[in-house]
């Protein structure tokens, strides 16, 4: 049965978006975080099917999917190396576009929004590149606080094998190749992913991120996630 939820005020991490007139949510924002190869998209597909079968309207959204500037981001990364603050602001602009044009309207309308990554990945990437955590936090003062955030935790060595099996190569940035960590791509990947994992560990309590063991089989991870999501949605009724 579709739930009847009383509108709740949107909560922001900082200053919020002062020019918005409608600031309530009748839906839920659920974030799945985790590195490439952690199984995010498989989980999002499974959760979407399950929630839709239960009668929920579901919207999935992810980084780099903005129609406005999304495609440009990918091109720019490979053409000219951008500075770390430039890149951080660029991703923030893309995120803001999706937040205001997709996520917030969907929440007004009562959707369950499944976000394939959120500001935490952007903040972690910035931190490992030497940008201050406080600046990143302030930058995302316009971001809304999700209702649930999961982090799919998979050891870097395991991730390497999964990514290689799936794509046959490593993504330049996901391997931290811009950072000069090691000439050896495997070593660079492991060091980089360890750095990202450490950032997530540091963010856990501050942002209420729930760590999920992503090293298990897909159905096991899904049972775990789905139970937590169902419990949460039941609590809103």
């Amino acid at each position, binding site marked *: 049965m579709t739930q009847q939820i009383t509108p709740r005020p949107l909560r922001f991490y*900082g*200053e919020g*978006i*002062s*020019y918005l007139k409608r600031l309530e949510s009748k839906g839920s924002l659920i974030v799945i975080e985790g590195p490439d190869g952690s199984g995010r998209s498989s989980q999002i597909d499974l959760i979407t099917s399950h929630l839709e079968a239960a009668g929920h309207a579901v919207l999935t959204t992810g980084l780099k999917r903005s129609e*406005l*500037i999304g495609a*440009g*981001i990918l*091109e*720019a990364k490979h*053409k*000219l190396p*951008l*500075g*770390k*603050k*430039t890149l*951080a*602001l*660029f991703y*923030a*602009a893309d995120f*803001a*576009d999706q*937040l*205001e*044009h997709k996520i917030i309207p969907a929440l007004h309308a009562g959707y369950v929004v499944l976000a394939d990554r959120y500001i935490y990945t952007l903040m972690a990437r910035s931190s490992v590149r030497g940008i201050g955590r406080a*600046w990143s936090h*302030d*930058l995302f*003062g*316009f971001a809304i606080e999700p209702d649930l955030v999961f982090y799919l935790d998979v050891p870097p060595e395991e991730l390497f094998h999964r990514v290689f099996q799936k794509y046959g190569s490593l993504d330049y940035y996901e391997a931290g190749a811009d950072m000069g960590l090691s000439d050896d791509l495997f070593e660079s990947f492991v060091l980089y992913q360890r750095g990202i994992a450490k950032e997530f560990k540091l963010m856990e309590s501050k942002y209420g991120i729930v760590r999920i063991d992503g090293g298990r089989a897909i159905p096991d991870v899904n049972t775990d996630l789905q139970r937590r999501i169902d419990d949460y949605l039941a609590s809103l009724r």
Partner: protein
Amino acid sequence: MARNPHRGKLIVVEGIDGSGKSTQLHLLDKWLRSLSLNVFFTEWNSSDVVKEITSKGKKKALLTPTTFSLLHATDFADRYERNISPLLEAGYFVLADRYIYTALARDVVRGCTSAWVRKVYSFAETPDVTFYFRVPPDIAMDRILEGRPKLKYYEAGMDLNLSNDEYESYRIFQARIVEQYEAMVQKDRFAVINGTLDIEEQQDVMRKRVLKFLPSNLKALAYSGRGTGGPAV
């Protein structure tokens, strides 16, 4: 890290369109180059890398104030990381036609909070001097609107729904920006230039102010007016 003793100087001009700031910065640029100083000129919203990526969005006129603000911050950061910061470190005179105060004025008028915009730009070095060109808004706008130019959507502030007429919208928008600038004069220690004075008079005020940044051997030269276009003393 100890402050670099050979660090350059950051000189900024701010003011609304038509206030005459670009003309003045151009003359200052010529003067400093005539004294054989290393000079780098940079202007607002001019990064090629960012322009390529954002022009599509701007054409669509779909940008929210937050996205708009962040795209300009991206442009600024690219110029800052690529040019402004390293060249200051290398001892250049960096001349900026508009700086973070332009973002503060415009983004706040569009509805972003000034606290947030300031935090976003907190990585930017405070200028050694910021010249603010104060002109009655009507005069500045008459200068710009004289030729009935085609105003761009965001330039005219059309996204703010101030008026359906783009010239009327532009006037209201510029007047609000002036309010924001005026609120920054004290807080951000602007050196106010009376933009209604003659061009030569304004330039003279600026050069006198910049003179103290020059190496001592050049001060005398600059004063004597032997540097081409030096201030008439």
